[in-house]
């Protein structure tokens, strides 16, 4: 493989992994607080269409990202009212919100179909972008790629080191105990759900404004579900989420390259297309198979509604 091919494939891998990282880290925070948000796909779709519409109207991609974040927040708020205030079942509500978001985004997006946006220029970080092989791939990237890295460190620090993160984990572990020592369980879960929604919205915005700068119905293409699966298979740990996301991106790009290169290999293309999904799952399951660490990191109250005793 020649050097420029390596660089361009690494570049594409990073870009493909970025929306998954952003969305999955948001979901990870929600789930660590004990809320299973299956609506991520819908939140991403709403984020994508809102971001596209705002960018198309104003011409400013950053307003687009803000709009995408706002749309994700709004859908997450609906989900929060259903599951936290009204105590509805989290799985059913999440599925409903996912279908709702995908459908509503298609409706809103109708006028924007087959419109293209100008590509947003990458940000080149001086000096380190000159590193051979990897410099151009890693440090001449979209701003949201750098954002995903910052988000990774922020979430890592928040969960492991900050007191607020400790409280959040406590709420996900045992809401009854957290309530008994005086923490506002429902409020904390709301914040966690809203954070997850905002990140899903930004992830959607990345897709429609930066990744493929256009709006097509169904363009989220299951990434919300993949992000959800990543969080579980990464046993709720940020570093593994990141590894999983890039692995998924890398295998995806590699198989696209193989399919597109016209190489004569005796392999069904459907098999190649499914490769990223099961390769990611197998790798994450293998690296996360220690039952001890699973028990230490999985939020014990995940998906269970909690109503404080009046």
């Amino acid at each position, binding site marked *: 493989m020649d050097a420029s091919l390596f660089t361009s494939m690494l570049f594409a891998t990073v870009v493909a992994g970025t929306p998954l990282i952003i969305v999955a880290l948001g979901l990870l925070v929600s789930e660590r607080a004990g809320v299973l948000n299956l609506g991520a796909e819908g939140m991403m779709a709403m984020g994508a269409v809102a971001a596209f519409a705002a960018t198309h109207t104003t011409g400013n991609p950053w307003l687009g990202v803000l709009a995408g974040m706002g749309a994700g927040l709004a859908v997450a708020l609906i989900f929060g009212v259903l599951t936290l205030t009204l105590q509805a079942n989290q799985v059913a509500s999440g599925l409903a919100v996912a279908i709702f978001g995908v459908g509503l985004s298609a409706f809103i997006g109708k006028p924007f179909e087959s419109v293209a946006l100008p590509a947003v220029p990458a940000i080149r970080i001086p000096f380190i972008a000159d590193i051979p092989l990897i410099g151009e791939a890693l440090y001449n990237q979209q701003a949201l790629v750098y954002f995903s890295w910052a988000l990774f460190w922020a979430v890592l620090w928040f969960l492991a080191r900050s*007191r607020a993160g*400790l*409280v959040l*984990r*406590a709420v996900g*572990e*045992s809401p*009854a*105990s*957290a*309530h*008994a*020592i*005086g*923490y506002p369980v429902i409020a904390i879960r709301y914040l966690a759900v809203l954070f997850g929604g905002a990140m899903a919205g930004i992830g959607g915005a990345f897709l429609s404004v930066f990744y493929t700068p256009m709006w097509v119905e169904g363009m989220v293409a299951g990434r919300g579900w993949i992000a959800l699966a990543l969080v579980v298979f990464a046993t709720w740990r940020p570093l593994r989420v990141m590894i999983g996301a890039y692995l998924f991106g890398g295998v995806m790009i590699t198989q696209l390259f193989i399919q597109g290169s016209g190489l004569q290999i005796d392999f069904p293309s459907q098999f190649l297309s499914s490769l990223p999904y099961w390769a990611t799952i197998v790798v994450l399951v293998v690296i996360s198979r220690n*039952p*001890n660490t699973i*028990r*230490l*990191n999985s939020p*014990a109250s995940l998906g269970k509604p909690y109503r404080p*005793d*009046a």
Partner: protein
Amino acid sequence: MNAPSPTPGAPPRLRLEGISKVYPAVVANDAVDLVVAPGEIHAVLGENGAGKSTLMKIIYGVTRPSAGTLYWEGERVEVTSPAQARALGIGMVFQHFSLFETLTVAENVALALPGKPALDELAQRIEAVSQRYGLPVAPRRHVHALSVGERQRVEIIRCLLQNPRLLIMDEPTSVLTPQAVRKLFDTLRQLSAEGCSILYISHKLDEIQELCHTATVLRGGRVSGHCRPAEETPQSMARLMIGKDLPVCEHGPAASGGELRLRLAGLSHASEDPFGTDLKDIHLDVHAGEIVGIAGVSGNGQQELLQAISGEEIIAEKFPVQICGVQAGRLSAAQRRRIGLCFVPEDRLGRGAVPSMSLADNAVLTAARSAGLVRGGFLAFARARHFAAECIERFNVRCGGPQAAAKSLSGGNLQKFIVGREVLQTPQLLVCAQPTWGVDVGAAAFIRQAIIDLRNRGCAVLVVSEELDELFEICDRIAVIAKGRLSPVRPVAETSVEDIGVWMSGLWPGAEPVPADAEAEAVDAAA
């Protein structure tokens, strides 16, 4: 023992006036008055369901009262949240611990403290407090790796770091060895001498007599009396508590020479739960017509042992578990029931019964075959209802009849039903886990008597319990499980509560030497 003489004219630390709490189905508290003086150890005594825990939750701000007033040091207050209660100086140690298992001791303590203490500095404060009050605990360990006694110390330390002036302890000794209870009492007396008031919730009369200055007795949500425990007898307090004399079990000598019904022949099994206990080379024989008890602090392998006997966990080889002469190690739970085993699990709702199903349906679940509740592959509903009704009547289960949902019964009544369901199947071998856990005194005596009667009819019984008094009351022979190993089995008449208490830390004759720091009761479940 004398109560510290209160300063004349000083207001009581806490005064409750006419506190009531009404839930949709029950009145948990009905116009309860309570006065606690500074430095006083005040017992709140009552059966399960008498309203003790609800009253404590009201004081600690977890629940709001429907009516009534709280006075804190003479001032009228409304406690709306646990945080406010802590700000006032009220600390509470819960019956079911409110610790976060996946966090460390220091993190657990930090969560309950106001402000943002640095974990390193906090670890030092934890060590200081634990030394001062004799509550050894390592701040950096994860809570899931601690024994129940250690967890309780963490809860107490968490309260003490907030310098409480009133400490509420909800049934603190139910999970402790006798030695640990004594240590806890020393700590509480020291706190009391320093002026901290203590509300001590319990239904164990001897403990209250030993520790408490004054007592308020609750029955059915109302105050049924006040007393000075030191001036009372257990019988007189029991009368206040249950309204009649304590029932006494009749227990004749065991028949000897009964046939072998359960043999554990070198049972070893690695637990699948990463925080479970591995069973190591367990030998035990239980014969027809005797009750064998297994004592031990929870988390020492009881659960794993019970699962290996009941068939919930299938072990690698056939021979280590022999039931009624059959090598049963690889048989499923249903197959083991077929050869004469009946089993009362520890967990009533969830493993003993399906909460949302009726009592009749729950009866079918284990008695389908042995009581003939299935005919030609179809459920015989009339027979099931009849079986459930018989169980309800014979075991004095208070409920809405065979069609009542299992979850609508109080814990004690459901336990009576589950024990009754198994006893009516006239098993060859009955295995009972915690038969009277969380069951009030009257129902507990009834269940014990039912087990003894079953033995007298020639059944072999194995009882696993953490309540030593219970084991000494009903068992013919007794052993101790500690760290997945079983002690020698001794006739109850030849041993004492003290000896068994020492054995519970793994120190029985011929046991493997235990590291010095594990003396007393720090039996570590995850070691």
